[in-house]
């Protein structure tokens, strides 16, 4: 269903990303196999968006390498930086950016080879009836669904999604989840899914990459991995737990009572 170039089939994405941000240095290393979904999870401001912008080639990294299969996309020491469009990544922006001057349909079809596929996706996500509206005249969730269709309608070699569920209601979340399973099965490419929500990461991710204040912090998700229900506090060292990058040392971890910790 979801098509990709033949060469892409066995290509693993590998990234070691270092970048100075305003209050900390982002320094993470990970790889993602084709057909596997890596959920990058972490508190707000942890550096998640920066990671996928770097993979897309929209952000220059200050150190490290990014490789996809045999291709080197970024290599700071060797001075390599492949332009965005040659990477062939599909990227759903956190702000679900759409072209303001194009209708929903023409947005979705911008990079599609195949009109049938576009129609299929728009119908699946229930925005076929507003296909002629401009983005500023549709609702937030409708815009986000269009951004997802836009990316799923093209041949991507890596799929990057930044909080693609943020404005989606339950049925549309379910649809996207199902669709991602189909993609993983039929056109195995690496998928990176950014979210602030452990629940989402647990349900979707084949692997989970927890990022806190720019570093991989496996302990951060421990408390969330315990069975749902009432729990006491848990203690974890290094790296502020609540996305406070300047806080070091012992901190009390947030303990979710439910998926919504209110």
């Amino acid at each position, binding site marked *: 269903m979801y098509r990709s170039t033949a060469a892409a089939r066995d290509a693993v994405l590998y990234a070691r990303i270092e970048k100075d941000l305003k209050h900390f240095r982002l320094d993470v290393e990970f790889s993602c196999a084709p057909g596997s979904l890596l959920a990058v999870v972490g508190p707000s401001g942890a550096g998640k968006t920066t990671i996928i912008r770097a993979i897309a080639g929209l952000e220059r990294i200050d150190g490290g390498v990014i490789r996809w299969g045999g291709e080197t996309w970024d290599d700071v020491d060797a001075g390599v930086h492949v332009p*965005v*469009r040659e990477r062939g990544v599909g990227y759903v922006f956190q702000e679900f950016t759409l072209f*303001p*001057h*194009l209708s929903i349909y023409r947005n979705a079809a*911008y*990079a599609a080879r195949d009109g049938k596929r576009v129609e299929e996706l728009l119908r699946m996500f229930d925005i076929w009836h507003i296909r002629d509206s401009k*983005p500023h005249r549709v609702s937030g969730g409708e815009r986000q669904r269009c951004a997802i269709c*836009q990316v799923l309608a093209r041949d991507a070699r890596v799929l990057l999604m930044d909080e693609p569920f943020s404005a989606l209601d339950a049925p549309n979340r379910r649809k996207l989840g199902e669709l991602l399973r189909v993609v993983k099965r039929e056109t195995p490419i690496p998928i990176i899914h950014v979210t602030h929500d452990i629940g989402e990461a647990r349900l979707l991710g084949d692997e989970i990459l927890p990022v806190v204040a720019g570093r991989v912090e496996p302990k951060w998700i421990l408390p969330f991995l315990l069975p749902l229900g009432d729990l006491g506090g848990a203690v974890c060292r290094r790296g502020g737990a609540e996305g406070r990058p300047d806080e070091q040392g012992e901190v009390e971890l947030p303990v979710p009572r439910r998926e919504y910790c209110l």
Partner: protein
Amino acid sequence: MTFRSLAIACGFAVFLMYGGLIVSLLYFVHGPSFLQVLLSDRTVYSLVLSLLTASVVTVGAVAVALPAAYALSRYRFPGRRLVDAILELPMIVSPVALGAMILIFFSTPAGALLQERGGYVIFTVYGIVLAQFVTTAGVATRLIKTVFDDIPRRYEELAWTLGASEAKGFLTVVIPMGRRGIVSAAIITWAKALGEFGATITVAGSMAFHTETLPIAIFMRLAQADIEGAAVLVLILITIGLAVLFGVRAFTGRGAYV
């Protein structure tokens, strides 16, 4: 007074200034002479020549200005600030002086060679086009650069992640998104070219049925102290110029998405 009525009052103040000038022209014009001047061969020639050269120049200037403005807005290259700094030159130097500069250029060995090889420009219709191009190209570039500066980069980023080349991003995203500003710049370019007089008369002369554009015809009337004739020609220029612009704007101005 509310802010709203103050703002609208300012709008009308500007209108009244120009409207008043137009109305005072009517004070000098009498019906029959208007038609008589309008329908004379010479006026028709000037009018067609003016509309034609202004349109050709607008197309040319905008065609050069679009990529130039994009380069200035998006790329960092050595000499960028220098290029950027010189764009207001044709505004700072008044048209007559600009025309003189063009003549001076053609009197240098380089310019002379160029004319020998490429054919005469001075005192021909090509001279009109050149003079109008020189007076407008810089400003057109500056105006379009301002438009591009205000288009957020993330739309190009989106296009690139969707596999678009820089050229495709430029053509399918930046230009359509800046459409209204570009049309506005083109309109100003056209208006400026249509009204261009000083550089034109200097480079192309004022030969009747040859290089006499409408602004030159107006000047010649004034030069003969024929105020009535000048007033009639000014009215013709204003009527046709504003009508064309009104039409263009009505046709292209729709479809804001902000």
